[in-house]
């Protein structure tokens, strides 16, 4: 009898073991919750976004190549006016222009911080970029509205609202992101690369240009892609300065719109389940897919160019 009791007691899991199991499961469930949220986001937005095509029977071709955006009405040709091309072009234009303008500045600043004056870099530029990353996007939008838009209006004519103003605002917004990631990748280049190059008689610039930057290229590319992803998904700052006219941009200073600006401006004015609303969700889906593609690109670059020490 007593032996049986003892055996039972010994066979049972100890309190600590149960506690351990509980902790393990608790932390795992927190993680699974995050995964469920991500899956939920993708599934929800995909179902809403695809209903334009399957419930409202808009063809993919009309959506991606049409240039008239006024969901609920018909184009002169008799089709539903859900051409998203102006917004897609607008998003890509501001993103690419902002990346093209910021990349040289960002690389220059990062090289200055790591190669030319590391002390001043750590003391002034490091906190400066950290602070720039932290400034909320609405503040950038507000400054864009009160400084950049009037400036563009005076210098280039037009209303001042448009792709150019959006580019200027995004340029400042993505600059710190690209700088800090480029700095990391420049720091990852081993010191002996530089020493070997200098010992061969190369000048400082030749070392920077032909050795350090070459070795850090994959990291710099990743930084630029990250900056572009941020620019592509930025909503409010762009929406405040781009003019919000869903037209094909015919010049850099004419009012235009991006996927995000149409979404933020329009979502509140439509009824759930209507074509107007579904078309907006399709824009959100395009945004989501682009964000996934940027992610994939980062992975691809990272895998090909991982720095082997």
């Amino acid at each position, binding site marked *: 009898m007593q032996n049986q009791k003892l055996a039972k007691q010994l066979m049972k899991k100890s309190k600590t073991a149960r506690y351990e199991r509980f902790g393990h499961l608790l932390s795992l469930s927190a993680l699974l919750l995050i995964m469920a949220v*991500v899956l939920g986001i993708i599934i929800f937005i995909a179902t809403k976004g695809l209903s334009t095509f399957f419930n409202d029977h808009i063809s993919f071709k009309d959506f991606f190549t049409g240039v008239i955006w006024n969901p609920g009405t018909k184009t002169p040709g008799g089709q539903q006016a859900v051409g998203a091309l102006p917004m897609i072009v607008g998003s890509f234009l501001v993103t690419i222009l902002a990346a093209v303008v910021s990349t040289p500045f960002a690389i220059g*600043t990062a090289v200055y911080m790591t190669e030319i004056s590391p002390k001043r870099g750590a003391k002034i530029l490091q906190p400066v970029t950290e602070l720039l990353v932290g400034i909320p996007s609405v503040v950038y939008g507000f400054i864009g509205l009160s400084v950049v838009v009037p400036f563009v209006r005076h210098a280039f004519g037009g209303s001042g609202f448009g792709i150019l103003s959006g580019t200027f605002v995004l340029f400042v917004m993505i600059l710190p992101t690209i700088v800090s990631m480029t700095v990391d990748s420049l720091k990852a280049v081993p010191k002996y690369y530089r020493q070997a190059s200098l010992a061969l008689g190369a000048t400082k610039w030749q070392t920077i240009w032909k050795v350090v930057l070459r070795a850090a290229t994959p990291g710099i590319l990743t930084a630029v892609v990250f900056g572009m992803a941020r620019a592509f998904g930025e909503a409010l700052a762009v929406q405040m300065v781009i003019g919000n006219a869903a037209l094909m941009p015919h010049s850099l200073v004419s009012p235009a719109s991006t996927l995000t600006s149409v979404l933020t401006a329009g979502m509140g004015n439509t009824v759930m389940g209507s074509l107007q609303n579904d078309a907006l969700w399709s824009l959100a889906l395009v*945004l989501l897919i682009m964000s996934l593609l940027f992610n994939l690109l980062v992975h691809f670059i990272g895998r090909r160019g991982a720095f082997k020490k």
Partner: protein
Amino acid sequence: MNRTQKQSQIAILILRLIAGFVVLILAFLIGYIFITGLPNVSWKFLTSPAKAFTAGGGIGVQLFNSIYLLILAMLISLPIALGASIYLSEYAKDNWFTSMIRTTIEILSSLPSVVVGLFGFLLFVVQFNYGFSIISGALTLTIFNLPLLTRNIEESLASVSDDQRQGGLGLGLSKYETIIHIVVPAALPGIISGVILCSGRVFGEAAALIYTAGQSAPALNFGDWNPFNIDSPLSPLRPAETLAVHIWKINSEGIMPDLTQVSSGSAAVLVLAILIFNLSARYIGRKVFEKMTSVN
């Protein structure tokens, strides 16, 4: 001096100019925000409610909403992020499951905040029928906040030396006890600075909130602290426009005559708050570290 040396000097000069230009941009930004904004900030501005049509409105309700939402979002996201980061840093094995989880978290952190906001709108506002409310906003901010907070906490957990874990296990503690009683306290300074840094990001977020916490700030009765009354400041079901949303809202469709003053004042308060978050993250992290490890 030969040609390549001259070329090198010119190139380095250009790099210096570029770095100087970037510093100038920041100096201009900060200077502009504070010089145009701070003169508009007064105690009255910070505490009185906004006015839609006349001059002299403040940001009292918006400021309270921002802080309340931040606290709620942090209360919800901290336990989840802590659990997730404990798993990732202590339990996770190096296999396909872990790398899939890491990829998902990366995807979540790179999603545009407007997409997160729209998801919050679909799920909390429409599906759960919470309406435009504090609770919808706080849950959406949680989703927005989780990936970065998880990564920050995981980094600080991973930086705890393995000796500490071996010490705990050697004394006969289970793995989970070791984590809770030894590793997490040792990582506390890093966790606290991570939380404060994320707070700064959450505090300034607007795109995720315009369709979840709403764009209106009804007057609050600051004498009533019962969370079940709809005009109580603590009520989780009232719409709550935050400071960042307020700046966006009045600049897109505001009609008050002192619009520029109100927005520049709000922008200055917002940036000042972020600055304080950033500085205190460093300071508190260091202080807690000194206290916990009794360095002096």
